[in-house]
Each structure stands twice: as structure tokens, then as C-alpha cells.
């Protein structure tokens, strides 16, 4: 009796498998990559974009989409990329590495993506790099900040297909140290995320500040796990350490919670010098509104009031009228990704990965965030984002950067070959 049942079940299973194979895209028996051999651009330019769209950080996915969608519409309303339309497909990256890999493979092998973009988590970016080499498609990272991506995967391992348009941990660690050297604080402590990003930035901050200023010491660390909703024990730890300065790479909702709870505990009255490397993120500024104290040092991967030129002003205005939001930094990096690819494809005269990689290497492009240059060696976009002190501005319902200090990318970004003397700031 068992055997008979088995037979039918196996048939059912085989049938399902066939149906599944058929449903997994028309591309099953279609040779892919035909276009790669042709010199002129054919068909649309397809960009597969993945970002976090579920869970506590889902707001970031929305901001990514706004920027990307806006760029796509602008490009298609104009002349497209080299005369062809650009198409984009979005997927939820879920912050899990294997999902990111599945999405990338779907984009390239099933949907037919020519380029990939997005990625918020460092772990995902690192895991995707070898996949990009295998799929031979360019991935433009727009948020994940780990320096290992560009230093190790691109520079050392030679994965040429990966680029990053957003600032890496150098902005959070090294640049912060340049700011801190001029702050009259001798002791520093941190409340930071209990994962690689938090550890790396604090280490970089300590190393660089130690070199810039001899008489500083680092007196307290409190590591908050991902998803922390109650920072009060961490705040107690720091208040007991009583440092002159607090450095925190908490970001997004957790930074909002931290600041609110620190306000209640009176932390900002006790500790005068506070640095939030990703405090200038739009969700944080809007989420905190007037609750963000004055004279806090903040920065980000882009700040909508910098540069104060016409291009950026026009872009911010267009963004606001389109979405009724101020642009978040991931909106800018997503938006600029499209234009960077457009420029590179048009320069290369082809969608061919190798040619576009070549065009992107060393390419300069003017974007809302200012001029970006993709460094040839590690594919990191070099561009400047200011640090600034928070202040109230009647024009905005939230705090903005008042006094701004610029630490230039070329001064604070690690330099190739990333090992040995002269590769880490100060230079």
C-alpha cells in the first residue's frame, strides 16, 4: 500500500517541478547575454535594485526607491541612456545575505538585469561581491559602508564589478577623528551598535584621533545589540564613565531612541561634546525634530543643504515636490547611481560590463551631492560630505547643520594599497 501511494506522489512531485521550472521565467531555454557581443546598445538598460523594504528599517527602502524612481523618470523623459529606455525592478533585500544573493541572481539570470544597485547591509555587500564576479554584472552599492568591500573584495581580490557611490566607514571613523581633534575633549566614550559596523568605526576613530591628538584617551564602551529599544543601561554606563565626548554610530530608529532617552536622562547636559556620524540622516532629523539638541556634531552620506549650489537646490526642490519629503542620503545615492551608470554607459558606448567598468574607473560626475570621482583602485566614489553642528532653523521643522566643517574625502579616506605606511590618515 505504501508503494502505490509513493508512485502517485512522485508523479505529482515531478509535475510540480516541471511547472515550477516553467514558471521560473521565460528565460529557461533562452540563451542569455547575446547583447554582450554587440557593440551598440540594444533594448532597455535594466537595473535591478534591492534594498531593505521590510521590518524596522523598511523606511530606508522607501527612500532608496524615491531617488531611483525619480532618476529613471528623468532619464526616460529626456533621451534615455544612449537613446534607450532605462527600466528598474525593486526587491526586498531583507538584510539577509542569502536573500541578497538570490535577488541578484534573479535580477541577472531571470529578469535580465544589466546592472545592479542598492544594498544596505555590509554583510550582504561582502557576500555579493564574488557573486557579481561570477554573474559579471556591475553592482553599485548605495548604502553599505564596510571598508572591507572596497579594500579587500575590489582592491585585493580584484572583483572589478563592484563599485560604491556612498561614503564608507572612513566618513564615520576617520573624518570624525579630524573633527574631534579640534574639540576640547580629552576623554571619549561610545555607545555603538554591537556589530562589525560599530566596532570598525570606533576602532578607526580611536586610531586616527590617537594619531592626530596625543593627549586623548578612550574611557568607555557600551555596545547595543541590533534592535535595542532601551538604551538606558547604556546611557548609565556612559554617564558613569563621565567622558568629555560621546561618539556614537547608532543610526536610523535606534539613534532616534537613543537621543530621546539620552535627553530624558540629561546626558547632553553632562556630556558637552557629542558626535553622531550618521545623525544627519533625514529619518533621524525628521524623527527627532526639535528633540535633537543644539550643537551636536552630525554627518551622513549626503546632507540635503550641501553643497549649497544651484544643482543641489534644484534637485532637493524637485524631490520635495515629487515626494513631499526631504531627500534622505539613500535617495541621493540611489538617484546618482542611475546618472553615474548613464554617463559610463554612454562613454563606453556599450552595456558590456568590462567596458562600463573601464569607463567608471576614474570617472568624474556631478551629482546632487557634488562632484564624485570613482577611485580607480578600489572603485570607491570620492566625494565630500560635511560635518556640522546642529542648530535650529526656522525654515525647517527639524534641526539642520549650522556651522559646517569639511574634511575632504582625499584627506580622510584610506588610500590604496590600504596596508603599510601612508595608507591611513593623517597623510
Amino acid at each position, binding site marked *: 500500500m505504501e508503494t502505490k501511494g509513493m508512485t502517485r506522489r512522485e508523479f505529482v512531485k515531478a509535475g510540480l517541478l516541471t511547472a515550477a521550472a516553467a514558471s521560473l521565467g521565460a528565460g529557461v531555454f533562452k540563451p542569455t547575454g547575446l547583447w554582450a557581443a554587440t557593440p551598440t546598445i540594444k533594448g532597455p538598460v535594466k537595473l535591478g535594485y534591492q534594498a531593505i523594504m521590510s521590518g524596522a528599517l523598511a523606511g530606508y527602502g522607501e527612500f532608496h526607491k524615491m531617488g531611483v524612481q525619480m532618476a529613471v523618470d528623468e532619464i526616460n523623459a529626456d533621451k534615455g541612456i544612449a537613446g534607450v529606455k532605462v527600466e528598474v525592478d525593486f526587491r526586498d533585500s531583507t538584510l539577509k545575505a542569502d536573500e541578497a544573493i538570490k535577488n541578484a541572481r534573479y535580477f541577472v539570470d531571470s529578469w535580465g538585469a544589466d546592472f545592479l544597485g542598492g544594498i544596505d547591509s555590509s554583510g550582504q555587500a561582502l557576500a555579493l561581491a564574488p557573486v557579481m564576479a561570477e554573474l559579471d554584472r556591475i553592482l553599485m552599492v548605495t548604502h553599505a559602508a564596510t571598508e572591507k568591500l572596497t579594500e579587500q573584495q575590489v582592491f585585493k581580490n580584484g572583483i572589478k564589478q563592484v563599485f560604491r557611490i556612498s561614503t564608507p566607514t572612513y566618513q564615520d571613523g576617520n573624518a570624525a577623528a579630524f573633527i574631534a581633534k579640534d574639540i576640547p575633549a580629552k576623554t571619549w566614550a561610545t555607545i555603538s551598535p554591537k556589530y562589525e559596523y560599530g566596532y570598525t568605526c570606533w576602532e578607526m576613530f580611536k586610531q586616527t584621533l590617537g594619531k592626530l591628538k596625543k593627549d586623548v584617551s578612550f574611557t568607555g564602551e*557600551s555596545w547595543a545589540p541590533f534592535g535595542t*529599544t532601551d538604551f538606558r543601561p547604556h546611557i548609565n554606563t556612559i554617564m558613569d564613565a563621565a567622558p568629555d565626548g560621546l561618539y556614537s554610530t547608532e543610526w536610523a530608529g535606534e539613534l532616534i531612541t537613543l537621543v530621546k532617552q539620552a535627553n530624558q536622562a540629561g546626558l547632553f547636559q553632562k556630556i558637552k561634546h557629542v558626535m553622531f556620524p550618521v545623525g544627519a540622516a533625514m529619518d533621524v532629523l525628521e524623527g527627532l525634530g526639535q528633540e535633537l539638541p543644539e550643537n551636536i556634531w552630525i554627518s551622513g552620506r549626503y546632507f540635503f543643504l550641501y553643497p549649497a549650489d544651484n544643482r543641489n537646490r534644484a534637485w532637493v526642490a524637485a524631490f520635495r515636490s515629487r515626494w513631499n519629503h526631504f531627500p534622505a542620503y539613500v535617495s541621493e545615492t540611489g538617484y546618482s547611481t542611475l546618472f553615474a551608470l548613464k554617463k559610463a554607459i554612454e562613454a563606453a558606448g556599450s552595456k558590456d560590463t568590462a567596458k562600463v567598468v573601464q569607463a567608471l574607473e576614474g570617472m568624474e560626475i556631478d551629482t546632487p551631492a557634488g562632484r564624485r570621482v570613482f577611485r580607480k583602485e578600489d572603485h570607491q566614489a570620492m566625494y565630500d560630505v560635511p560635518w556640522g553642528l546642529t542648530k535650529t532653523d526656522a525654515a525647517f521643522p527639524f534641526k539642520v547643520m549650522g556651522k559646517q566643517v569639511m574634511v575632504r574625502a582625499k584627506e580622510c579616506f584610506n588610500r590604496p594599497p590600504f596596508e603599510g605606511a601612508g595608507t591611513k590618515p593623517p597623510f
Partner: protein
Amino acid sequence: MLESIVHVCLAGLSIGMFIWLVASGLTLIFGVLKVLNFAHGTFYMLGAYLCYWVLGRMGENFWLGLAIGPLVVCAAGFLIERFFLRHVYHLALPYQLLLTFAFVLIFDDAVKILWGAGSLGSPNVPGLSGSISILGRNFPLYSLFMIAVGPLVALAMWTFLERTWWGRIIRASSSDREMAAALGVRVPALYTAVFVLGTWLGALGGGLAVPYVGLLTPGMGEAIIIDAFVVAVIGGLGSLKGAFFGALIIGLLSSFGTRFLPTFDMFLTFILMAAVLLWRPQGFFGEAK
């Protein structure tokens, strides 16, 4: 040092009460229905969002939001129990978990569709938004309020279960469903009522959590559900008294651990959870089998 210990203690108490408010409904439902409700974190999230939504329409009155928001969630709880959960009571444990898990997925996305993917700021609670100075360091009034509300909820539940006719029936059905049914208790209706009450407690926890955490995010329920599980287990599954003290233990452990053990981690709470399950599965306060 004294100042530090007092504040670490207070922080621990408020964390504990925060978890207790969520774990109380979970424990009540498990105690009577013997269902481990994965969707309890979802009720917490819905409570927070609906509280926020209602108060936005009621002139930013936090207390009105807190009064009405969780009641709306109760409607969802009623529908889930009446039309879905009821049909899987007789099935194995995984079916119940999976069913409630399906609702976690559905409501996580529903919240995102209804209120947007981004985080939302918390409302101001009149009279409780400031801080008071204790031994020279500020402590938020709202946290003190949480420390007070926790025991009040516990007391109210205890009175309800021990001193009222309804409570007696619930306790009777919880210990012997067949006997209660034989004595004329309409057990299915009672289960619905208990589930709705548990839902209300979870949603109330969510509403109260909004000013405490400071913001609302889709998926906020997923972080709390494991804490609630740990607390429910440490206290002895189904024991409200146990859950109350279990929450206090976890709250104080995480506060003191974070402050005095630099390497402190959730690892310790899971060791505690495993140790309790191995040596006192009925929990600290549960009666021995």
C-alpha cells in the same frame, strides 16, 4: 557609585515592567488556551500603531488613544480566534504556531501599507514627558509611570482571576477543560473571551510602549516577542505571577549586565532560560508537577 546603582536598578525595573506588560497577555492566553501565540508581538505592534492613529484623530490626547486603540486590536483578536485559531486547537503544536506566524507576516506588511514603511515619532504624554532628578541624575517620569503601571496591571489581573466569578471560571477551564464544560461552562466562548483579553493586554503594552521606546516601526513586534517568550518561560509557562517576576529578573539582569559586564549579552538570558527549563520547568513560581 550609589547613584549609578540606583539608576541601573530603576532602568532594570522599567525594562522589566515594559516586558511584563507584553508577556502578561501571552501568559494568560497560554495558561488557558495552551496556545503559544507568535502573533502576540503583532498585537503589541498593532496596539502601538492604533493608539498612535487614534490619538492623531482625537486632538493628540494620549490617554484617549490608549483607551481606544487597543480595543480596535481586540476586534482583530476576536476574528483571529473565532475564525482561525479555534479550528486548530485540537491539532499539534506546530499548526498553532504556524497559524499565528502567518498573522505575523500578514500584519507586518499591513502596517507598512497602512502607515508607511518609515518609523513614526511618538506622541507627547502630557505631564509625563519630563524627568525628575534622583541622586543628581535625571530619570524619565514616563519610566517611573511604567514602573507603577506594571504592578497595577498585575494587581488588576490577580483580582480579576482570583476574586471574580469570571476569574473562577477561567481558572477552572484552564485546569480542566472537560470538567468545566461538563459543569455548563461554554468553553469556546470563554476561550474567545480570554484570547481577546490577552490581545487587549498585548495591544495595551504596545500603546504604553510608544512613548517609552520613542518611535514606531513596522516589525517592532518581532523584537519583543522573544523577550516575552523568555519571560513567560522563566516564570513558568502559564503562570502570571511567574511572568511578573520573570520580567523583573530579565529587566534587572539586562540592566546590570549591560552596566557591569562589558561582554554582557542575550546569551546570559538564554542560559537562564535553558537552566530554568532543565531544572525547574514549572518556572520559579510554578507549582511542581
